[in-house]
């Protein structure tokens, strides 16, 4: 809670330390748009919500007071309350992240264990290289390659967007399938980008466990190799694994900014990217605080899960 307080304070100060002329210009440009509020009103609103006219500390508490009550002001880009826009777009991101997350676990954990049990085999090298490529692959480059191959050369998918051109004419089931089809490439990008580190993590932890004494004991007892690995070793590898995966859970809401932007999936990542680029202060403030909350929640969950999964920690 204290950390959150300071983090939001820093974010607030950063936003505050943006040159005033920049904020003014942005507000003025916003007010030029058709149907937008007049400049004075925007400015007054900003002052009210963010205490822009007050000293930093007082202003921060003004903002904090509003934020606690869930008032984040109106987004300048979207011309609607920030929280409303957030509710609109968050589920796209969540769906995208959950699918990718599941796939990551399903692929990375078995491969990690496989490469750990056969350390220094060809299999291990292959998996290691694959994992490191996954880590090293810039997501934007991989997404572009996918687009080039599957959208342009093969023409299987659309280049952008979450729905096809004929979306409105499909039946409800067809609409869901249409969206699913548009999610394939983004999910592939996210999965490959995330798979590497998880695989490495599994491998490292599995190796650690396999080197421990009780595994040697189990082998000495003459247990079957599969039983040693899946019964003795894997269950102990699960402790750090569950901890780190649990810590990643809140991150599912954070949105994948780059991937969503590249595929123009209207999730929280793409939405806030547009806001960031166009200097939409209310939305930016909200999104940054939201991300900070997610990170902290992740740490908290990881701590709790660590205690849940490993009885030794609980005793202490």
């Amino acid at each position, binding site marked *: 809670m*204290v*950390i*959150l307080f*300071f*983090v939001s304070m*820093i*974010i607030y100060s*950063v*936003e505050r330390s*943006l*040159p005033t002329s*920049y904020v003014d*210009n942005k507000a003025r440009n916003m007010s030029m748009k058709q149907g937008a509020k007049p400049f004075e009103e925007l400015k007054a609103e900003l002052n009210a919500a963010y205490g822009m006219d007050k000293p930093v500390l007082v202003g921060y508490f003004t903002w904090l007071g509003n934020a606690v009550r869930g008032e984040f002001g109106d987004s300048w880009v979207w011309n609607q309350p920030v929280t409303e826009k957030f509710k609109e777009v968050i589920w796209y991101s969540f769906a995208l992240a959950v699918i990718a997350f599941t796939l990551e676990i399903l692929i990375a954990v078995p491969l990690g264990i496989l490469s750990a049990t056969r*350390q220094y085999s060809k299999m291990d*090298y292959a998996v*290691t*290289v694959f994992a*490191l*490529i996954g*880590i*090293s*692959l*810039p*997501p*934007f*480059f991989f997404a*572009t*390659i996918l*687009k*080039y191959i599957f959208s*342009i050369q093969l023409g299987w998918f659309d*280049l952008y967007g979450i729905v096809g051109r004929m979306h409105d004419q499909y039946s409800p089931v067809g609409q869901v399938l249409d969206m699913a089809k548009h999610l394939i490439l983004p999910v592939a990008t996210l999965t490959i980008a995330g798979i590497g580190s998880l695989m490495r993590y599994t491998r*490292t932890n599995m*190796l*650690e466990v*396999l*080197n421990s004494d009780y595994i040697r004991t189990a082998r000495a007892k003459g247990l079957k190799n599969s039983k040693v690995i899946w019964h003795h070793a894997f269950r102990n590898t699960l402790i750090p694994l569950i901890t780190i995966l649990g810590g990643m859970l809140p991150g599912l809401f954070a949105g994948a*900014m*780059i991937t969503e*932007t590249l595929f123009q999936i209207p999730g929280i990542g793409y939405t*806030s*990217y547009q806001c*960031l*680029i*166009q*200097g939409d202060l209310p939305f*930016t403030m909200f*999104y*940054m605080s939201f*991300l*900070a909350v997610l*990170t*902290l929640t992740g740490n908290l969950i990881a701590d709790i899960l660590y205690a849940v999964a490993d009885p030794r920690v609980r005793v202490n």
Partner: protein
Amino acid sequence: MSEKLNKVQDEKVSTSQALDDEQRVKVLSPGMLVAKRFFRNKLAMVGLVIIVAMFLFAFVGGVISPYGESQVFRKTEVSWKDFAGAAYNDTWIFNTKEGEDFPAAAQQKFVLASSREEETFEAGGMTYEIADLSESLKAVIAQQPVATVLTLKGKSSYKESGSTPLTEEIKKGYEAAVEAEETTFEADGESYTISKSGRQMVIAKGGEIAFATKKVFNGAAADTAMDYEFQKAALTALDAGEKAFSYGGASYELSAVEGERVIQILLDGQIYGTISDMLISPLGTDAFLHLEFKEAAEAAILAKESSFEIVNEAGETETYQLQNKNTQYVIRNEKTTMVNDKFRAPDKEHLLGTDGNGMDMLTRLMYGGRVSLMIGFVVIILEIVIGIVIGGISGYFGGWVDTILMRVVDIVVCIPAMPLYIIIGAVMDSYKIDSGLRIYALCIILGLLSWPGIARMVRGQILSLREQEFMIATEATGIRVSRRIFRHLVPNVIPQLIVMATMGLGDVILMEATLSFLGLGVKFPLASWGNIVNAVNDSYVLTNFWFVWIPAGFLILITVLGFNFVGDGLRDAFDPKMKR
């Protein structure tokens, strides 16, 4: 089979014994052991080779490359450009007498009146008269009111109404005309008209102010003088079927070229100008079309040809195309223009082609590599310095210092880095900050936000290290605190630091590339691998020009991969307990 096995076993046994003997005498230092383990790791070697190759490519390649970072290549492109337009003239061309004014509104009225075959028209409070002088020549006579006359009981009272002074001559002429019941009279060599307006009579001075014709005059040179009187004289002569006319003391000949509709005006046997039915005008503003060109074009149009050739002053043959659009003709010629040689496919001159600005791709990649690698190193050094200081102090002192510093670390970890970079990038964009300066800003921001990992690691190591005996020794010898931390504790962390730094370098390069890709990191004209790939945001480039984005993305991939391989190998080498 068994023999072979035995042999292998024999070899193994014998060599291992020999090695053991060796090692008893010569013990490798820990550093050498690490190096040995590292060099045995195939992946790490691959990584090392990649990194060395990248450095050579970026730093040496940039020097060797014959092209500059932002050298734009141009090429000449030949294309058919619209050069001139031609059409049979069917609108009136007005030629106004010097010193007179024939406004556009009046010209419109003239066109209307002549199509209705009316003899007079009014515009802007003036009355104009149309006089058919000859077949192709119509004179416009403006009537300027001179005076109004009110005649009561045979006595006339005059009132001046124009700028012309009312002279006795005019009055006399008027009275004579009224008596003779004529509507025009002459006085002082000028002609006047009388018209009735209510009970008053109006005397107006009629003067020819302009003529209208559908014939087009073309001068032999851009400054050929063909003024009002000249054209009028020429047209009058032409319509009268005369072969010559004189103007301004010189005598001109009119000669019709057989088979053509162009009439040449000759002065002393030289072509002075032409009269034709066709209006040919250049589409460029400052071009002058020669008579030869116009004649050739007209001849080609008459003969319904689609192209014609002309020998120009330099003796070269120029080819022109003719295109017919309804009654309009467009004359096109081949123009060579200099354009940026963009998206040129790879060839000998440009091994990887050129990008959207006509810059050599390979050279851009080299300079981009410099920027990417340099940013990586600067950021990592910044990270390490901050991380060591914070982590060292925190780990050495422990207690409340540790608590506070670690909370600071927690806070920095919590700050969402990517959005922060983006918003700062966007602000820098809006202030149009110089792209060189941006690189420094980028380094500082990246460094300031990514040190917590290193700080945590250093602190964790130092927490356990400070309990060891050598620290008691440093305390006993009274070495000062800063020296204890940075000379005695931190060097023990260096292996882990090197591993983290190597892996971190890859991450920084990736981050920089991502930001540049979004257009918020390194900016054009400076190159960076990220902003080279940025070209794919244009799906036209994505679809058609693989050589623009694939090499840059591939370079990022293998560079980061190289650092990760090396980092991985170093970790294994420093910490061999993972081996079974």
